[in-house]
């Protein structure tokens, strides 16, 4: 029983869950009406793709990639490459979040709302008096 | 210095002269006096005449003047090639440019027109493009100049910047750009199937390259561009609409460059790309000939009904241009020579008519034929020239029109097409029917029109070119070969195409 579950998870299960998380994030960006939520969903999506990378970096029986002795065997350590890549990805996501939040603030300041439908209504109202 | 003296560079020089003039006029035009600006035009046109004429002896000898500059697209160079057919058109265009320029100066000043700088610049650009069309050695070079001509004519058509001008400008663009783009697609197909684009007398396409339905489609895709510019029905309607432009522009459109470029395009496509054999076997030439016949008859009938003088002349042009197309499509050496010579003949005759119409408009502000009663009293010289040119259009013997029409008729007879012969004769009568009333009204003796009591011709600038063209059109009728050997060129072109097939 346990081994079947394990095998299923290893082959498909974890990937499936990660991808569902990713699609939830993407869907959140599309269906949410609130810009703040869209931003949070964007973060969720990025986290999901980080999981995706880390998933196939795992190694059964491997330890964390800090060398314990001078002589190392590759099979003893978890693959460090996805970790390196994902560190970069996390940093990028923080940067994007920061920019997104400041944009969000400007939107609130100008339109007084961060709901998409309200915003579109107000945008249309001010079409004529636009100042670039 | 070899650049100036070497014979190969002459076609390039001929193109560049007016191109540089155009640039100079556009850049300097607003900053220098009008006299200086027009001097540029005149100097350039004189230079162009010299350059073009200087090539005549070489072409007569049969020397190939061939210039390959650089590859314009991969595998095809930007090349000029001076052959008799191109020479005919080039001579006409360059000769008429200087006359039109002189006339324009008189007309524009007499009329106090706006935007003269743009006008002269665009005019020079058109001539550049027309010369390029004459001397282009391959389809892509040809197409480049063809499109430049399209774009450069647009500001001329929309010259008055008013609603009417805008609309006719749009109409012009719609017709020419659409046909131009289709032409482009056809060139691509031709290049893809044949791997060459050099104009060859007798054509380079064969039936193996383009099987039957494709051949006909591509034929009309290519000829369509020529048909639009040459105003073959049903693609003619931009031409009468373009009448809103000033008269020198009409002269340019109808006589010097634009519609002739269309006719020339048809010539190149039918005889130099497809060749008589393929054009015949795919039935393209036949269909086109019948369309030309239809155009000749219908446009003459329409012209009968028009009371605006310029509109009447415009429909006359539509009909006359179809003579050229018909001559090409009969596919005999005689008719081809006749068609080419008709480019010359029609140019001189029609430009006389237009210049006369313009002179009348500038001096008396009359456009409608019915108001011209007794005009002959006031402007006898103008009206005399008008009369001469009318005879020419109708194809009277000893006028330029006769020579070309006779040749086309010979060709039609040789091919055994009695209906074409009949058409040509009927249309000559119709031409008389729509042009003679103008003459008759103008010279009607019994009526005294108070408007035209005093004698008063247009300014000399306008009158002189008018008289010159009228005289030339008679001279060309009596001695077709005089001076420039244009008739010889036409015959040479016809022979070069058909001799290999004999």
């Amino acid at each position, binding site marked *: 029983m346990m081994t079947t*579950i*394990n095998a299923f*998870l*290893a082959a498909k*299960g*974890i990937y499936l*869950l*990660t991808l*569902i*998380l990713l699609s*939830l*994030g993407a*869907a*959140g960006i599309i*269906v*949410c*009406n*609130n810009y*703040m*939520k869209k931003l*949070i*969903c964007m*973060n*969720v999506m990025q*986290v999901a793709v*980080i*999981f995706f990378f*880390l*998933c196939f*970096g*795992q*190694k059964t029986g*491997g*330890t*964390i*990639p800090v060398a314990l002795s001078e002589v190392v065997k590759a099979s003893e350590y*978890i693959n460090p490459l*996805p*970790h390196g890549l*994902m*560190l970069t990805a*996390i*940093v990028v996501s*923080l940067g994007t*979040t*920061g920019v997104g*939040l400041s944009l*969000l*603030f400007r939107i*609130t*300041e100008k339109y007084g*709302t*961060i*709901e998409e439908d309200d915003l579109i209504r107000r945008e249309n109202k001010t079409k004529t008096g636009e100042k670039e | 210095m070899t650049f100036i003296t070497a014979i190969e560079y002459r076609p390039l020089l001929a193109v560049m002269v007016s191109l540089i003039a155009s640039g100079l006029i556009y850049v300097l035009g607003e900053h220098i006096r009008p006299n200086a600006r027009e001097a540029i035009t005149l100097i350039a046109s004189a230079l162009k005449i010299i350059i073009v004429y200087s090539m005549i002896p070489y072409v007569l000898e049969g020397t190939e003047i061939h210039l390959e500059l650089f590859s314009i697209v991969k595998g095809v160079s930007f090349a000029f090639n001076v052959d008799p057919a191109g020479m005919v058109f080039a001579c006409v265009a360059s000769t008429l440019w200087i006359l039109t320029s002189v006339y324009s100066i008189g007309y524009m000043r007499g009329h106090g027109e706006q935007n003269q700088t743009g006008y002269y610049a665009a005019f020079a650009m058109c001539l550049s493009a027309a010369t390029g069309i004459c001397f282009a050695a391959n389809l892509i070079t040809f197409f480049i100049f063809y499109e430049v001509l399209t774009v450069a004519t647009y500001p001329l058509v929309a010259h008055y910047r008013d609603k009417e001008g805008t609309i006719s400008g749009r109409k012009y663009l719609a017709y020419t750009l659409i046909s131009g783009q289709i032409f482009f697609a056809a060139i691509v197909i031709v290049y893809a199937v044949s791997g060459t684009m050099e104009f060859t007398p007798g054509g380079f396409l064969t039936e193996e390259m383009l099987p039957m339905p494709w051949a006909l489609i591509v034929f009309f895709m290519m000829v369509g561009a020529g048909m639009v510019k040459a105003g073959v029905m049903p693609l003619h309607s931009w031409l009468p609409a373009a009448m809103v432009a000033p008269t020198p522009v009409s002269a340019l459109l109808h006589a010097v460059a634009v519609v002739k470029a269309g006719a020339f395009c048809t010539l190149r496509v039918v005889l130099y790309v497809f060749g008589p054999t393929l054009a015949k076997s795919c039935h393209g030439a036949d269909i086109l000939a019948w369309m030309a016949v239809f155009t000749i008859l219908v446009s003459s009938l329409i012209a009968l009904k028009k009371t605006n003088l310029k509109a009447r002349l415009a429909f006359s042009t539509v009909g006359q241009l179809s003579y050229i197309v018909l001559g090409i499509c009969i596919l005999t050496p005689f008719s081809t020579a006749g068609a080419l010579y008709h480019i010359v003949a029609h140019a001189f005759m029609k430009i006389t008519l237009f210049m006369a119409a313009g002179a009348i408009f500038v001096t008396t502000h009359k456009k409608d034929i019915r108001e011209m009663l007794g005009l002959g009293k006031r402007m006898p010289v103008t009206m005399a020239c008008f009369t001469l040119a009318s005879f020419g259009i109708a194809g009277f013997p000893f006028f330029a029109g006769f020579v070309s029409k006779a040749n086309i008729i010979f060709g039609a007879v040789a091919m055994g097409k009695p209906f074409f012969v009949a058409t040509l004769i009927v249309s000559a009568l119709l031409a008389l029917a729509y042009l003679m009333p103008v003459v008759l009204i103008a010279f009607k003796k019994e009526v005294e029109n108070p408007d035209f009591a005093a004698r008063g011709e247009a300014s000399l600038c306008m009158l002189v070119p008018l008289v010159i063209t009228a005289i030339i059109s008679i001279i060309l009728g009596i001695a077709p070969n005089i001076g420039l050997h244009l008739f010889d060129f036409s015959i040479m072109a016809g022979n070069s195409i058909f001799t290999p097939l004999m």
Partner: protein
Amino acid sequence: MTLILEAILLLGLIGITVAIIFGKDLMTSVVIYCAFSFITMFLYIVMGAPDVAFTEAVIGVISTVFFIIILRSVNRKTK
């Protein structure tokens, strides 16, 4: 065994995401998102990526603070 733990944590994350999407109060969403970060960090450790987890821990805090700063000027309620 780790895989099952991962699966459970991932399911938790999915639940949180659904809660964020359908929540009515932005403050709640942001606070839940903080929890999301925390679970994520835990998950990274389970996956054997302590460096990433460390980073996520720090970033989780910082981005939550950013969110809350912005939230003060935004209407908390949402449809």
